[in-house]
């Protein structure tokens, strides 16, 4: 394998920007039409991702310790798209054809290098996919309850046909029949339950194909598919510190899952939950928060509004309100919400003595169709 030559060759294709992946997919669909149905109608985002992923692979091809786990995760995650071992040679052939098409100096040596590299990649991905067959490639679930709470937010209750194993705070990718082949990430708002039921909080994003369908069109009885869980907001089970939870918008979901976990598994500790919104109408889960605060003596819930001056709730940005109730320096903090809220809250907490190592965050923004290399599921 002549790695420098391969990198130079890849750079030539990559220099053509969108044209190279466009050529690749067109070649793939023409030579193997059966692969077309694995992809959504619009391929725009898909194209960005393919060459980004390939670029990462090419950059790390001489660092197998880093590359192999990435490929394994890719292989496992691709099962939910319906990718099978038989698709790999088809993709390899079109990839080689593409690299050849954009390189005038393509030769047999280069072809041999790429063939060898691709076979290695495919082998690692297929093996990882095969080894995870104890898990289904996806879980079929039924929407058993759909509750529009505000104009833009709905709370969905899903009953997976077989239980999904995840950690509270983790995210699952969701696909609805209404938007085939488009997967988006959502955090269940509960810890795994004996009956397997999941609660999702979905905010419709303007122009977002999946979120708007989940909020405004999906109905009770509809089918959705869930992909394997990924995530990083999971509760640090090695710590028994009291908790400070801060949520904005549907960032409430993973935070509720953490409360649920403390309630189910302990260890017992004090938990302070702060939920922020612009006005009172935006508290889409108020009734359930009230119920939790009544049932759980160790839980204190504080709601704060930033814009409605007439409200009887606390006023101010959530980060500000949290500080007023401090000090929090001895807590473990979990912060989830839109990027501005998370950043503001983390900065304030940190400047008031909470070490960064004890602040965990999840940013809720337009979600990525697949996690980045470091596991981020939103952008």
């Amino acid at each position, binding site marked *: 394998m002549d790695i420098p030559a391969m990198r130079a060759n890849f750079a030539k294709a990559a220099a053509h920007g969108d044209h190279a992946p*466009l050529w690749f997919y*067109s070649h793939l669909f023409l*030579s193997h039409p059966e692969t077309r149905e694995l992809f959504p*109608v619009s391929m*725009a985002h898909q194209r960005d991702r393919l060459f980004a992923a390939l670029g990462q692979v090419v950059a790390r091809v001489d660092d197998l310790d880093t590359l192999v786990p990435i490929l394994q995760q890719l292989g496992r995650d691709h099962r939910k798209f319906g990718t099978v071992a038989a698709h790999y040679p088809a993709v390899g052939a079109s990839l080689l054809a593409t690299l050849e098409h954009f390189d005038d100096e393509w030769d047999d040596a280069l072809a041999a290098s790429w063939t060898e590299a691709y076979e290695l990649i495919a082998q690692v991905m297929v093996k990882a996919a095969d080894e995870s067959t104890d898990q289904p490639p996806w879980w079929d679930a039924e929407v058993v309850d759909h509750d529009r709470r505000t104009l833009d937010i709905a709370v969905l209750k899903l009953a997976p046909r077989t239980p999904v194993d995840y950690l509270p705070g983790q995210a699952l990718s969701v696909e609805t029949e209404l938007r*085939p082949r488009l997967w988006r990430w959502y955090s269940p708002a509960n810890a795994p339950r004996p009956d397997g039921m999941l609660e999702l909080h979905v905010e419709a994003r303007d*122009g977002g194909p999946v979120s708007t369908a989940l909020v*405004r069109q999906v109905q009770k009885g509809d089918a959705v598919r869930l992909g394997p869980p990924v995530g990083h907001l999971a509760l640090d089970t090695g710590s028994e510190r009291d908790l400070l939870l801060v949520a904005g918008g549907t960032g409430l979901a993973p935070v509720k899952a953490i409360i649920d976990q403390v309630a189910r598994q302990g260890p017992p500790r004090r938990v302070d939950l702060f939920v922020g919104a612009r006005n009172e109408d935006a508290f889409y889960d108020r009734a359930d928060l009230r119920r939790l605060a009544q049932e759980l003596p160790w839980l204190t819930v504080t709601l704060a509004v930033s814009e409605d001056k*007439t409200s009887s709730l606390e006023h101010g940005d959530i980060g500000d309100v949290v500080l007023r109730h401090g000090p929090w320096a001895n807590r473990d903090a979990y912060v989830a919400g839109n990027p501005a809220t998370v950043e503001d809250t983390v900065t304030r907490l940190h400047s008031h003595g909470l070490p960064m190592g004890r602040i965990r965050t999840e940013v809720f923004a337009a979600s990525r169709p697949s996690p980045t290399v470091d596991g981020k599921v939103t952008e």
Partner: protein
Amino acid sequence: MTTSTPTAGDGERLTPDVVRDVRFTHGTMLHPGYTDTEVDAFVDRVSSELDRLTAENTQLREQLQRLEQQLAAAADRPSPSDQAVGILATAQLTADQYVAEAEAFSRQMTSEARLHYEEQLSQAREKAGAIIQAAQEAGVRISSGRSTPEVSAQPATEDLEEQVAYLRAFGQACRTQLRSYLEALLADVETEWGRAHPAALPEPPSGARVPRQLRGAQASFHSNETAADVGDEQPRTGVPAGTGSTATT
């Protein structure tokens, strides 16, 4: 020796059943055991049958290999021509553009509708708040101004309370109406957008037709005809918005 004789004619094929059912005649007192000649003949027959099977096996293996090579060659289909790839790429870009436009349209509609909703709502709130406050102040003035006769004060307070209740209900109704109006608008956007499924893509043109389609392809992808066709498949539902649903509240 019964069913079949081990020495049976050369023409007859040796089958597993024949071997299973073979019976040798027992020898005499001088030569105990099976009759040598019969056993020898049978061994000959078995070995020639094995030879034949081995040869056939080799031949079949070669044939299988040939077929596998043919299959691999067939699977390794000729690479689609650059022209074909180009056409599909253009079609894909066109589709991507339509989806992006639909998303942008939906985004714009939704955010404008929300902005409108929030403006109206806050205005209505402010108005209602001001009226309620004015009414309450008037109520306080009247009830504190004990000098005025009870008879006239009582109805005035009741009037005001009634007015306040009315205004509260009015505010609530405004909000409900606005919300259902906005929801109808949003529903309309969603319906217009429709369901997009890769399987719903038109059948690709058969190989033979590709060359003829090449010439017109570029033009037809951008022509208004294509856009009109899409429109026909997903007829506009008209604006089911506001009017109908708000009238009922």
